[in-house]
């Protein structure tokens, strides 16, 4: 260990109680800084994580309906999906229909979100119990519709007591009277799944896309969005450009582009975190600058002695800067522990707000957030040490030694 690091380490423990209080204060401001860096990109990182888990590299939606609208439709989605599947690297293009409808079970009826997918499409949800939709269902084409299998979400199982094997009726109409004018479909619950973007109490069902279209009285071939799976996701941007160029009625997004567009709508989170993050960095700066300046003021004689002993001016300046950085570094473990604990608590509060999907998080701990926090805090330490370092740089050795002896 060089003399500068050695001296800086010993100086930190020179007045242990004072150092402990400063480190504690820096841990608190560092925790807030970490929380703000986690918040700045947290929602995007969380969304990106979920999207990556789904395994679809490109999303195609009716133009201007990002991120999703159950009302807008791509009219001939089946044909567009078929065209996309001819592109190199595409393993599947899945038209998905989304709509609100009602589930009746016994005497109870509750609103639900329905996802119409081609049978046996992996990735739209993750099955947690029972069986998935069959790969080839018997398509209902007139006459008495058979009982079709559906997959329900965990909310429906937990909150409404629906179990695997139960029979339910799906209908686009909210009441029994109106139901006589609308199609209804008898269904059997085949499985229970985790749907990634469910709201806290939202009920969701997945069923075969053609069945849902018939229930909604929509023409065949349409879809709310098309999900594209690729062997090489690095070609997703090129494919998205090809799709958007081919059909002017749709927007096509790779995951990166999707996140960038979503991020543009979340700028208020960034602004919020930049303001509060800057405030916490400023407090850390003032804390470090004050304590190191105080410490240097108490040690002017010793510092002049070190200079007289042969320590060059630059070494002493370095020593003071290292003291600032060392204080910030000492606060990092506390800042991370406290920051993560506070972030979890704040995340729970925000997730309890209406309209927030259960699997998304506002505060996401990522390597980038950690590196940014460490970098800002250490830079703040160096900046905080800069003023007292400048004081030592200007220190005149002989007059200081004389003053110290006379005083």
């Amino acid at each position, binding site marked *: 260990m060089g*003399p500068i690091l050695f001296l800086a380490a010993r100086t930190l423990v020179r007045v242990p109680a004072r150092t402990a209080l400063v480190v504690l204060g820096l841990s608190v401001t560092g925790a807030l800084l970490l929380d703000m860096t986690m918040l700045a990109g947290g929602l995007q990182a969380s969304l990106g994580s979920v999207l990556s888990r789904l395994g679809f590299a490109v999303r195609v939606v009716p133009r201007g309906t990002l991120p999703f609208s159950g009302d807008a439709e791509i009219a001939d989605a089946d044909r567009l999906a078929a065209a996309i599947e001819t592109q190199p690297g595409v393993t599947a293009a899945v038209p998905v229909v989304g709509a609100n409808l009602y589930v009746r079970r016994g005497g109870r009826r509750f609103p639900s979100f329905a996802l119409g997918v081609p049978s046996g499409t992996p990735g739209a949800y993750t099955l947690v119990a029972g069986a998935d939709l069959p790969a080839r269902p018997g398509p209902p084409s007139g006459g008495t519709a058979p009982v079709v299998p559906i997959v329900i979400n965990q909310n429906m199982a937990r909150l409404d007591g629906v179990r695997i094997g139960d029979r339910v009726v799906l209908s686009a109409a909210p009441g029994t009277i109106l139901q006589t004018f609308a199609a209804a479909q008898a269904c059997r619950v085949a499985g229970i799944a985790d749907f990634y973007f469910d709201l806290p109490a939202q009920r969701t069902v997945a069923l075969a896309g053609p069945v849902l279209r018939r229930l909604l009285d929509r023409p065949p071939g349409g879809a709310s969005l098309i999900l594209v799976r690729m062997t090489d996701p690095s070609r997703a941007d090129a494919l998205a450009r090809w799709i958007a160029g081919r059909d002017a009625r749709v927007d096509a997004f790779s995951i990166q582009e999707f996140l960038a567009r979503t991020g543009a709508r979340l700028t208020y989170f960034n602004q919020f975190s930049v303001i509060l993050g800057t405030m916490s960095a400023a407090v850390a700066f003032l804390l470090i600058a004050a304590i190191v300046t105080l410490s240097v003021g108490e040690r002017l*004689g010793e510092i002049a002695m070190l200079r007289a002993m*042969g320590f060059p*001016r630059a070494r002493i300046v370095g020593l003071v800067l290292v003291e600032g950085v060392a204080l910030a570094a000492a606060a990092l473990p506390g800042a991370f522990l406290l920051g993560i604990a506070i972030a979890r608590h704040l995340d729970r509060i925000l997730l309890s707000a209406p309209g927030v999907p259960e699997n998304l998080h506002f505060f996401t701990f990522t390597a980038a957030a950690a590196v940014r926090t460490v970098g800002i805090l250490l830079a703040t330490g160096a900046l905080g040490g800069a003023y007292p370092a400048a004081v030592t740089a200007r220190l005149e050795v*002989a007059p200081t030694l*004389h003053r110290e*002896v006379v005083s």
Partner: protein
Amino acid sequence: MTADPAARIAAPPGVVAAEAVTKVYPMPGRPVEALRGVTLAVERGTLLSIVGPSGCGKSTLLHLLGGVDRPTTGSVTILGHRTDGLGDAALARIRLRHVGFVFQRFFLLPMLTAEENVALPMMEARVPADERRRRTGALLERVGLGDRMRHRPGQLSGGEMQRVAIARAIANHPDLLLADEPTGELDEATGREVGALLRALSRDGLAVVLVTHNPDLAALADRQVRMRDGVLV
């Protein structure tokens, strides 16, 4: 010697020499002339004492001889290097390798043990750790503190602290030792011990310059010079 060779002049005899040195401090109103044309040289193995009333310029001269300050006019030469021709870093290197300081207030670092205080200049001079340990032990033995190595300054008496400061000052085997009122905060008996130590160091070949008010301490010197109003008398 690592200082700029270009700054080296024909070396006058002696470790340090001051030639017609003046030092003027610019003050509001009128400048203060602390030194007015002092010429002085100190040889190896010599103990020189500088005596005189407070404010006569003794400490200022000591600082100039040690290269922590530069003269307004005239020159100071340490081992053939004119201090006015050297930059801060080069002058610091000369101080580190060739000059040791002892002050009335000791200026030991309170968070370091006696051995760490003594080792500090050697760390800066990049003396290897093994050599540093060996030399630190020997130095503290020499000043009679072999059993106090791990004590912090707060656990030492004034005399012990000053002996640690002397051990630190000679840690890098300097050629010149400058002591400014080294017994100023010590009782008479301890002051005598410190004086004897400085005397012994000069006998070992060190050039020692001692600024003091203490006539007994000054009397230990090989040469004694008296100052008044910034000049040698």
